[in-house]
């Protein structure tokens, strides 16, 4: 069973990456924080008695499910908003504007201190490209390479086969590499 100290250490280690993972998915600071909070609480409340070595895979599964729940709720909310807008007959902004607004990073996110301009630019491009990846590819890539889960753990967390994980990872890596190359960045 994970002790409070072990759980604390695990969460401290994973929380920043979890926040960024959620942010890549929802492009909003508050929503990303809410998602991480939900995931942390669910892990502690429901799986706090599990051994410490099971926590990483469990947390990733919970995080991805929480992100999916957020998508579902947003979808329903958007459906109602669209319906009411249509009924009201009011002039609404273009769909493209909505997408742009959704995708635009928070203003304060853009004002991070610049230690190395090139590095920062590269990171921004990489993050933007990651955010553009299909959700399953991004999930697989981040879990497999950023969280360091092995293929079996990633497959279990994503609820798919190991072959699918490998395919998602490969496609994600190729897409990211191609996007970086197009911007003149070599890793």
């Amino acid at each position, binding site marked *: 069973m994970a002790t409070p100290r072990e759980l604390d250490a695990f969460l*401290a280690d994973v929380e920043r990456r979890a926040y960024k993972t959620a942010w890549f998915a929802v492009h909003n600071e508050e929503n990303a*924080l809410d998602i991480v909070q939900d995931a942390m609480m669910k892990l502690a409340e429901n799986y*706090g008695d599990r051994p410490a070595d099971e926590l990483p895979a469990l947390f990733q599964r919970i995080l991805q499910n929480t992100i999916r729940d957020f998508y579902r709720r947003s979808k329903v909310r958007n459906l109602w908003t669209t319906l009411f807008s249509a009924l009201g007959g009011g002039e609404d902004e273009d769909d493209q504007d909505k997408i742009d607004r959704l995708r635009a990073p928070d203003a304060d996110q853009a004002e991070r201190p610049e230690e190395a301009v090139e590095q920062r630019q590269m990171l921004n491009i990489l993050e933007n490209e990651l955010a553009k990846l299909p959700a399953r590819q991004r999930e697989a890539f981040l879990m497999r390479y950023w969280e360091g889960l092995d293929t079996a753990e990633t497959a279990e967390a994503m609820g798919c086969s190991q072959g699918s994980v490998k395919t998602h990872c490969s496609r994600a890596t190729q897409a990211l590499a191609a996007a970086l*190359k197009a911007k003149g960045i070599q890793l």
Partner: protein
Amino acid sequence: MTHETKCPTPPQDDLLAKAMASALDQSTGVLPSRITARLAQMREQALMHQKQWQSALQLAGQSTHRAMGSIFGDTFGSATDWRRWAASAGILLLAGAFMFWQAQSQVEDLANEDSALLSEALPPTALIDKGFQTWISTGTPAAKD
């Protein structure tokens, strides 16, 4: 990058991906302080709700019951189980006492009736005699057929 990098072999895939992940690691180091503070706060809240570690009292209870469990089996796993056992035993005890009292009073009633019948001067057969019943209700003997 060449065409080969666009369709890399698995080891190249891995190397590229790891390089990107390592670059991403740097981005977590420059998160605004308000976000890192919120994350730390969330972590503390989550720790307060950790399953099995919610209170020292519960923990103490669990260790006692685990010890009891080793003697009596796994059903003695938690404080809630103990409360359930105690409540069930109490209810069973009350039900048993009530049934015993009911049985005793039935026996006593029957004994009283028997003794009353036997102590009467009237023979018990008179009570099932039709003529006697009529005589009791009207005060006159039944007419002879």
